[in-house]
């Protein structure tokens, strides 16, 4: 899993039937210190996250597991909202 910041959302009318009523958010992956790291991506939301929040997300087919048994065609999904990150050795 990886940390990311939610920076936006995607609106689609015509989409896969199993994506109906799913929220799709744009994520900017983060390094542990909170700086941007890597390309943005689109992820499905399984926890009620919103723009501006720091979250962690899972990549791959596992992103669809929160919606089991529905086979939601997603390869990235938000599975937690981060309250706090503590880094040993940082000051």
């Amino acid at each position, binding site marked *: 899993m990886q940390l990311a910041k939610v920076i936006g959302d995607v609106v689609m009318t015509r989409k896969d039937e199993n994506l109906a009523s799913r929220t799709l958010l744009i994520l900017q992956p983060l390094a542990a210190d909170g700086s941007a790291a890597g390309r*943005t991506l689109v992820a499905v939301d399984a926890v009620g996250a919103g723009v501006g929040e720091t979250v962690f997300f899972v990549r791959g087919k596992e992103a669809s597991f929160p919606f089991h048994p529905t086979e939601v065609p997603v390869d990235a999904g938000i599975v937690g909202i981060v309250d706090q990150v503590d880094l040993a050795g940082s000051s």
Partner: protein
Amino acid sequence: MILARIVGTVVATRKDPRLVSNKLLIARPMDPHGKAEGSYLVAVDTVDAGVGETVLIVSGSSARMASGMKDCPIDAAIVGIVDAVEVSD
């Protein structure tokens, strides 16, 4: 998933039998602001997308969960046509 713009089509006569009657499109990944990034890819279309449209592409084994793609040999599927992208930064 990634955002991409459809830039072309692929025609293939000889192909895996499970790909018959599926439309293959060439997509250029882009960032949320519409700027192209990364290299082109071929994706199976499941939502009747066309050239010039912005779409959502699911990659890897998840692509097989797109409608009608069960057990098909694909690693990228177009699962939605994007109406709008809102970015806060």
